[in-house]
């Protein structure tokens, strides 16, 4: 047999053994460890607040725009010189301004741009505050009470300096639902 053939055959045998170790035993071990109580609050992501999915209706806080259809994930991949997309963003801005009854220049950036995952659970504090009057009105709650809920569902930076703060819309809407 040629050297290459011999090496390839040896390679196949090594690969099969390594498949057993890294492709079956390794993920199985990590899966088993992830079941340990207390290590992970929610390894199965049941009722998770990690993802944000927009709820229709004026009584809810809205997430950022999503460029994808569930169950997939992803972004718009539109460049900043894309004029057709400028029109999409302008339309979002106009619609949100009208919905919230604020001037267009008070609509924050994150409200009109699609996130990277299409499942971003967070919005900026500014976008949450713009939505407070409408949500309060639709739910018959005081604006102060709704602002309290916003504050209670705001995630800070990790350890005070990792990432950016944001209001978790999924958690906020559930809190709102419970408070109504």
């Amino acid at each position, binding site marked *: 047999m040629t*050297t290459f053939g011999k090496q390839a055959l040896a390679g196949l045998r090594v690969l099969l053994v390594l498949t057993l170790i890294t492709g079956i035993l390794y993920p199985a071990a990590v899966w088993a460890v992830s079941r340990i109580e207390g290590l992970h609050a929610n390894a199965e992501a049941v009722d998770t607040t990690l993802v944000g999915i927009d709820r229709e209706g004026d009584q809810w806080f809205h997430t950022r725009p999503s460029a994808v259809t569930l169950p997939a994930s992803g*972004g718009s991949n539109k460049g900043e010189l894309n004029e057709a997309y400028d029109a999409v963003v302008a339309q979002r801005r106009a619609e949100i301004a009208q919905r919230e009854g604020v001037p267009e220049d008070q609509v924050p950036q994150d409200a009109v741009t699609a996130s990277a995952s299409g499942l971003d659970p967070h919005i900026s504090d500014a976008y949450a505050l713009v939505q407070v009057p409408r949500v309060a009105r639709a739910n018959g709650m005081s604006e102060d009470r709704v602002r309290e809920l916003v504050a209670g569902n705001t995630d800070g930076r990790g350890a005070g300096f990792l990432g950016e703060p944001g209001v978790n819309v999924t958690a906020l809407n559930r809190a709102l639902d419970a408070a109504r």
Partner: protein
Amino acid sequence: MSSTAAGLLQVGFLLVALAVVYRPFGDYMARVYTGTTHSRVERAIYRTARVDPGSEQRWGTYAQAVIGFSFVGVVLLIILQRVQSVLPFDFGRGNVPPGMAFNTAISFVTNTNWQSYVPEAVMGHTVQMAGLTVQNFVSGAVGMAVAVALVRGFTRDQTDRLGNFWVDLVRGTLRILLPVATLFAIVLVATGVVMSLKSGVTVDGHTVATAPVASQEAIKELGTNGGGVLNANSAHPFENPNGWSNLVEIFLILLIPVCLTRTFGTMVGNRKQGHVLLGVMGVLWSAMLAVIWTAEANGLRPLEGKETRFGIPSSALFADTTTATSTGAVNAMHDSFTGLGGGGTLLNMLFGEMTPGGVGTGLYSILVMAIIAMFLAGLMVGRTPEYLGKKLGRREVTAAAVSILAMPTVVLIGAGIAAILPSTQGALNNPGPHGLSEILYAYASASNNNGSAFAGITVTGDWFQASLGVCMALGRFLPIIAVLCLAGSLARQKKVPVTAGTLPTTGPLFATLLTGAIVLVAALTFIPALALGPIAEALL
């Protein structure tokens, strides 16, 4: 705290964390590759696979082992994808179409992890774990093995033997990648990364796809692979839920490429030789971070394609790191970056993935570039160049040049043909210069085995599947063959003593030469193409 201050603090924290592990982990890796004893598990593997761990290989045999191993990896991965419908955990996703299976198999075996498929819709958990995760490990270990073989070329004296590929492969997998990946998969689980064997989960009445993410996530970053378990990759909240997980992932990407410079210094018996390489890598990594960060902070739509929880600094840090290491994982969509910011991520790849580059590939690529730099210096002073006590003659410089020139050749020919094909127009997601950037980025990413994308481009057509597959294979194996040939030729030489005329390769002069060579080679080959794409976009 302002966003900028928090971002700078994060960069500082990351660098301190890397500094803490640099010595112990770098030296540990040196011991892994120089040790003479085999563990019980390793002996069992060698027995089962019927390879003799005691016999050392010449460069040609080593290269054939690398290619033979990769070849069977591609075949096995194609088969797994093509029979997916009979495997468990396939969730009715069916067999992967042939063109996609071919492209994906080459992609994962070459450590590229370019993804023409949408994982949530195409890949079941069995193929993800027993196919893709396995290649996440072994393709990384192959890169490290080749790097170590090249280092042995410098350290050995008058021998034609470079070591045993199977031993290097098994040790890299079992002693380096597996323990670190296991530890950090658990850390990632603790930060909130999902680990589920179900196909999806219901959230407020909607189904969101899930997967066994944590196990693949850890090795995806540690092995500088980068293929997302889910379509949005590390932007997906299940893969990267918060600032902590984000930092851990960036740390994992840099861990091995950075510490391998220590491994190198330790193996050649002069740690300053490793420090100078690390310095050059660090300068270019930092410079490109500054470019990407500044550009993104001043964009017209700075949050388009970015997650709120990462914002600009953490997205820029991730983007710089993933493109400078041949990883290709993303926590923001590079396609929506500014002309300058997106151009920065592209240039990072076009430097040839050595700042600090992928696991192993970064070290061997920068060593090859060091040879080119010493050759240029030799031409200037009219002296036969030397590096680490070995003369750089015609054979060595030719091998180095082939290794360096393979990537630009493949990128420019591939992107050139794609740009003139009529069908390409319909595959683009953006008009004007940004459309050309999408094409250029795809071929740069494939040929450099990076795997990230200006993801708006549709690459499921036959031309892209086939041509990008070929680019990934050539971009991986041409340099590997040249590097192993170079290693063989270096190992055969007798070491030459250091004299007063030897140019020291530990000081600022050499660092400047090397940095200059990296920038110059990229500039000379790519400025025309970059001018039509990202540079034009940045100026418009």
